[in-house]
């Protein structure tokens, strides 16, 4: 048996696990035990091995690797003796800590707090004065004109909405009265009854709801809709298999941020986690980013993709077309929601919209609850319509 790690290392390891925990990694007692055991097997003077060992035990997701590396640098990495005096290598990366925690850790580790705290985005959703409307009125009221209290009502309306996303057949089979013969069960039964195939059991594919992927434009021109659309996303995330992304100049995945049960906390983390709310729009680039980085991961199992944007695009329309064609090919269905479609006399004439239109399966409005309910009906009935 190798020697146990030096005793004074254990409390330090515990503190390191707490730092990772504060930075959003799951570093519970079980992992800590594993880390302690792992360190017993390696040469602690080899810093790279020490780092790799802790990484393989304390990280289990690629996205968490940079956070781990930053935390490791801040916590363990001593200044490289070969580096010129005055430079602390590797201590420039920032950690996603809340301001209070960052301050506490900086004090504990004797560091400058600015090194630890990630830039905070002051953008908040605009809150306005209160008001009240009857439900039916609310259903048809444009999101743009809604007050804060009305948006609360909308949230309740959306949560009660009766629709669910359509199902698809999976490759997994389950027992059923009709369908293909289940040889396994039939034979098993036959063996029990002296080898005669008395009963034929059957099975058919199980059905599952299709995953939804929401790609939402939160650029400047969409600003007045973005809070409502986030409420919409949160309401769906509560009950469907949803992957959500927002973009203005770049694409950010907000799936995990939306998972919080409490709407306000979810919205708060979205606004903190997304750094380019109300920026310019490059739809083509954002979709390109999605196609390359995310499509293979989130478009399995016959996903339905919903893009919400007004189509005001400062990017290259040719790029947008190319990315949409690619996206449509890898999605079960591609739906474009445009809040402007609800306004009177609107024609999809913006360059982006004109480029996008021919490549979407559906083009719908998204300016009020009634429009979102139409979307719900479409999603619920997807397979009863012939697609493409």
């Amino acid at each position, binding site marked *: 048996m190798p020697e146990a790690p030096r005793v004074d290392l254990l409390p330090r390891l515990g503190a390191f696990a707490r730092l990772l925990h504060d930075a959003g990694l799951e570093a519970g007692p079980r992992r800590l035990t594993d880390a302690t*055991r*792992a360190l017993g097997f390696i040469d602690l003077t080899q810093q790279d091995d020490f780092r*790799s060992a802790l990484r393989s035990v304390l990280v*289990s*997701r690629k996205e968490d690797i940079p956070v781990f590396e930053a935390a490791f640098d801040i916590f363990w990495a001593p200044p490289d003796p070969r580096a010129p005096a005055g430079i602390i290598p590797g201590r420039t990366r920032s950690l996603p800590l809340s301001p209070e925690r960052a301050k506490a850790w900086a004090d504990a580790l004797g560091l400058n707090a600015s090194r630890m705290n990630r830039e905070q985005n002051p953008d908040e959703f605009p809150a306005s004065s209160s008001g009240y409307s009857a439900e039916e009125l609310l259903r048809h009221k444009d999101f743009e004109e809604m007050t804060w209290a009305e948006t609360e009502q909308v949230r309740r309306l959306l949560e009660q909405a009766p629709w669910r996303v359509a199902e698809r057949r999976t*490759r*997994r089979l389950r027992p059923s009265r009709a369908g293909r013969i289940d040889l396994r069960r039939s*034979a098993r039964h*036959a*063996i029990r009854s002296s080898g005669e195939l008395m009963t034929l059991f059957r099975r058919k594919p199980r059905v599952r709801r299709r995953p939804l992927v929401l790609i939402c434009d939160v650029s400047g021109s969409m600003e007045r809709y973005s809070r409502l659309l986030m409420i919409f996303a949160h309401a769906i995330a509560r009950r469907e298999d949803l992957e959500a992304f927002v973009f203005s100049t770049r694409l950010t995945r907000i799936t995990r941020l939306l998972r919080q049960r409490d709407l306000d906390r979810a919205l708060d983390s979205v606004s903190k986690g997304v750094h380019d709310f109300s920026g310019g729009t490059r739809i083509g680039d954002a979709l390109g980013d999605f196609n390359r980085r995310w499509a293979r991961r989130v478009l399995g199992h016959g996903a339905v993709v919903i893009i919400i944007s007004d189509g005001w695009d400062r990017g290259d329309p040719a790029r947008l077309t190319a990315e949409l064609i690619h996206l449509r090919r890898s999605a079960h269905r591609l739906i474009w929601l445009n809040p402007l479609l609800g306004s009177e006399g609107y024609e999809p004439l913006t360059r982006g919209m004109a480029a996008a239109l021919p490549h979407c399966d559906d083009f719908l409005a998204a300016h009020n609850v009634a429009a979102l309910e139409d979307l719900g009906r479409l999603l619920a009935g997807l397979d009863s319509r012939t697609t493409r």
Partner: protein
Amino acid sequence: MSAPATIEDVERRLRERRYIGDRSLATSIFLALKLEKPLFIEGEAGVGKTEAAKVMAEVLGARLIRLQCYEGIDLAHAVYEWNYPRQLLHIRLMGEGEDRRAAEREIFSSEFLLRRPLLDAIDNDDSTPPVLLIDEIDRSDEEFEAFLLELLSDFQVSIPEIGTIKARQVPFVVITSNRTREVHDALKRRCLYHWIDYPDLDKEVEIVRARAPEAADGLAREVAALVQGLRGMDLYKVPGVAETLDWARSLAALGATRIDPGLVSATMGAALKYQEDLDRVREQVPALVEKAKRA
């Protein structure tokens, strides 16, 4: 063969079997062996995840048992299945007077059991614990993941007619994922985690030399540099190391010892698998070749 005693030992043995990996991978493998925990390897397609498990089996002198996952994979395909046609036949051929109870015991014995990879890995009599490769777990579904979670915590399987079979020796488990979806945290928590990145140029040249020795040294370097250049481009499907190797082998098979724009254009299907990517790269072939030769 004895288990590796140090990280260096793992590194050396991998290298002897022409697997060129980082020291951090060797560290993860070493710890997985020592802590007796499964190793969860993630990375883009074609970075050598499956290969790592295969080489591990060789390194340990163990049998490799591979389970390829797919959507809808179930226990009948992963663990065991009774050989029903044989059982039925056996029962039909039995004389009237024979003891049915004894017959039933007989047909539910291991002779009529079709052992699938997971049962094979658990119920093993190998002199060295086998390496169980659960490949591309991201293709399976949540039900199967939940089952694996259970299996990996107690390494036992229950077969109602036979009883519970517990592993006498725990296999070394390697799980790979291409990240086409997120695997559940509970499963990952049971494992050590390792992310395999694309290698840098020198490492990739080394890999090509080790795994495609038919490619001349100059060719190996230029192809590796070319692929490194492609990885910097905005492509739908970035070529992995497997593609670099395919490409080097194709060029070597054509008798090439250096690359040129004509050869590259003719063979780049070995590395690029989307029409849009081929079109995008085609215009830039001369510049890419030029840059690769200077690398």
